[in-house]
């Protein structure tokens, strides 16, 4: 599989690349970063989750996951593969392992204990350094993701629709659950995008057998990339309604979400929920004299207000009739 050291491109090209190569029926590993900041919405995400007042360019991708703020302090890796050339890879999990193993190996090489958390995050010390998504575009399997060199939780929170309190809570939660290469390195070390791109390329070569190309075939790609870019900005595609869980939900990392009820009562309360342990790990705007963490049993024992209990059960995805907790 060819590997292209694409480097810096405009924001739309950074998305058009992995949407255009499948149209050309080309495989490839693309390493790049965007010149300008922008927002990328997941394929099935509700348009209303984007804060239009942020005034930042926005695109909707054809792969999964949720809204992300992207800028030039993130190095993107995009793997476009033909399933017929990889018959042993049948499930999304297989594809994520195939595509992300080189990234984990790269981080391990730097001395960080990185690990793959299903379905598609790479974590170090339980904090996310790389968010990823995938899917089928044309007849290709595509996995895309990034490595954070630096990250501003405030910028990410700004582009996400919600009240000021939700934005503040989101920024605070991301500060605890995300980590960057520069955070992990000594103060004397500041990673450059070129450095990360070249190291990543080595590991994609070593782990996946990707062949590093000496140039990028822009002439061959140009038309397909232009058409892909236009498709991604088509207003009907961009402004789609999408997935709406029973509560307002913002993902922080795999297994950690901020949730807020859609009901009239207690609608200001924001809960950080760990969906694996079914625990509320932080609360904002809550007058209750109980400190998290709180699991469903503790909610039952410690909270006397039955309507608040019901709201918290809902945010925890606990069915009260099953557990006789109400």
């Amino acid at each position, binding site marked *: 599989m060819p590997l292209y050291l694409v480097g810096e491109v405009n924001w739309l090209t950074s998305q058009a690349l992995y949407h255009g190569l499948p149209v050309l029926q080309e495989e490839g590993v693309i390493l790049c970063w965007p010149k300008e900041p922008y927002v990328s919405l997941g394929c099935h995400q509700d348009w209303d989750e984007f804060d239009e007042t942020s005034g930042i360019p926005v695109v909707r991708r054809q792969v999964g996951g949720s809204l992300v703020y992207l800028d030039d302090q993130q190095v993107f890796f995009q793997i476009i593969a033909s399933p017929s050339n990889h018959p042993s890879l049948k499930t999304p999990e297989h594809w994520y392992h195939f595509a992300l193993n080189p990234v984990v190996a790269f981080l391990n090489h730097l001395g960080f204990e990185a690990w793959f958390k299903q*379905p598609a995050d790479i974590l170090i010390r339980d904090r996310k350094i790389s968010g*990823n998504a995938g*899917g089928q575009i044309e007849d290709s399997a595509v996995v895309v993701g990034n490595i954070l060199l630096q990250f501003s939780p405030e910028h990410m929170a700004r582009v996400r629709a919600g009240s000021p309190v939700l934005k503040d809570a989101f920024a605070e939660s991301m500060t605890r659950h995300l980590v960057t290469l520069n955070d992990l390195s000594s103060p004397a070390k500041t990673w450059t995008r070129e450095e990360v791109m070249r190291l990543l390329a080595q590991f994609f070569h070593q782990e996946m057998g990707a062949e590093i190309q000496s140039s990028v075939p822009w002439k061959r790609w140009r038309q397909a990339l232009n058409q892909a870019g236009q498709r991604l900005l088509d207003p009907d595609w961009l402004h789609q309604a999408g997935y709406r869980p029973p509560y307002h939900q913002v993902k922080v990392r795999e297994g950690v979400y901020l949730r807020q009820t859609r009901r009239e009562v207690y609608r200001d309360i924001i809960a950080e929920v760990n969906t694996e342990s079914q625990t509320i790990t932080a609360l904002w705007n809550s007058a209750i004299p109980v400190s998290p963490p709180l699991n469903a049993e503790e909610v039952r024992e410690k909270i006397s207000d039955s309507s608040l209990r019901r709201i918290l059960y809902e945010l925890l995805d606990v069915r009260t009739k099953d557990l006789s907790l109400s």
Partner: protein
Amino acid sequence: MATEPIHRWRVLADRFYDTRHQWVLEDDLLLTLGITDYTQDTAGDILYASLPSPGTVLEKGQPFGSIESGKWVGQLYAPFDGVVIAANDQVSENPQLLNQDPYGRGWLIKVRPSIANPRESLLTHADYTRLLDELDER
């Protein structure tokens, strides 16, 4: 002598299939489409399904919808030309039906085909079983 399939996925004999692991069931003038047990099994927990509205024109080989599981988007492709007559709202509201009952309550759309014999380009259950056997052997 009939041989037992070696794959682990359920295939029903009352319907046809395509190579993209979708099933087609004849229902008088309409054809009902869905995903197979293989698709739901390899996708994992399906969290979202995007289906076309009634009246949408389907073009053979082109995507008509998509499903998402674990940040992975899989496309649904039209196996023949036709017009969507109905989409399964229950699947849109509760995509887990696709995992729980892909051949029954998890049907996706009903289509009026615009070609005379759409079965010609489809696989019989025996053909599809062989396809799955080959996949499982790899």
